[in-house]
């Protein structure tokens, strides 16, 4: 199964400032048009940005939502395969259909520690705009997403089992960094 990390989302109260930072420092470009703003309305000036490979959603922080890193997303070649693995090996994991206006993914789920991720497949109906395109190469790009866990090996096994991610021998050990 082909899996690609394709999406990261941050909740912020400072969309303009954050978008400008990532565009200025890391060369990101806008790839979708329209996101909800602080008024709760659809704002065509906002949009997801990208480094050419991974889309970045700067989501408006609304009341009751914590600011900061919110979720990330995978694109896979067969969502049904992922769902079968989740059902078979991790039946307690909750799976939800994503909201129709979300431009990246069709499915939302979570890992055993509660980190949420989207699962997308290119042919899904709601995948649109920049997320449907092949992207571009640029010198600065997102290279990793890091999470913390009380038992890293158990969490890593989840991503290996479900998404087929591979351990990087030169970086990893069995306890402190996987």
């Amino acid at each position, binding site marked *: 199964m082909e899996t690609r990390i394709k999406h990261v989302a941050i909740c912020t109260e400072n969309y303009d400032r*954050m978008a400008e930072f990532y565009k200025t420092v890391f060369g990101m470009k806008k790839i979708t048009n329209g996101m909800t703003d602080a008024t709760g309305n659809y704002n065509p000036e906002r949009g997801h940005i990208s480094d050419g490979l991974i889309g970045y959603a700067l989501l408006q922080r609304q009341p009751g939502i914590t600011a900061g890193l919110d979720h990330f997303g995978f694109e896979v070649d067969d969502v049904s395969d992922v769902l079968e693995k989740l059902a078979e090996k991790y039946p307690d994991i909750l799976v939800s259909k994503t909201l129709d206006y979300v431009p990246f993914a069709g499915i939302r789920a979570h890992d055993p520690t509660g980190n949420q991720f989207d699962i997308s497949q290119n042919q899904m109906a709601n995948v649109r705009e920049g997320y449907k395109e092949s992207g571009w190469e640029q010198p600065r790009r997102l290279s990793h*997403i*890091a999470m913390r*866990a009380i038992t890293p090996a158990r969490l*890593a096994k989840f991503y290996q089992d479900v998404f087929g991610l591979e351990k990087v021998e030169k*970086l990893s050990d069995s306890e402190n960094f996987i």
Partner: protein
Amino acid sequence: MTDGVAYLAVMPCDNDSYRGMKEGLHHLGFRVESVDNTKTELEQLGVRSPAAGPRKIDVGRDGPIRLKNLQACRIGKHQTSDPDGILLDLAEE
């Protein structure tokens, strides 16, 4: 772990601080063509417009622990943050 292009890294929680015991997404890392050049640009951005530049990580009582935890990432070589304080690290590969 990797998908062949990007990494998903899992680091251990600890009890050096209350925050250290919390599971969850921790930081984002960027590959850049030059860490030195990027550091300089970030410093200049912070001078030009402090609110639009990176926030200092090593502040407050937990600051040294926060920085140490970010430095524990084996991929990143330089630690910084965005204007919201999202932790970032930079590396050249």
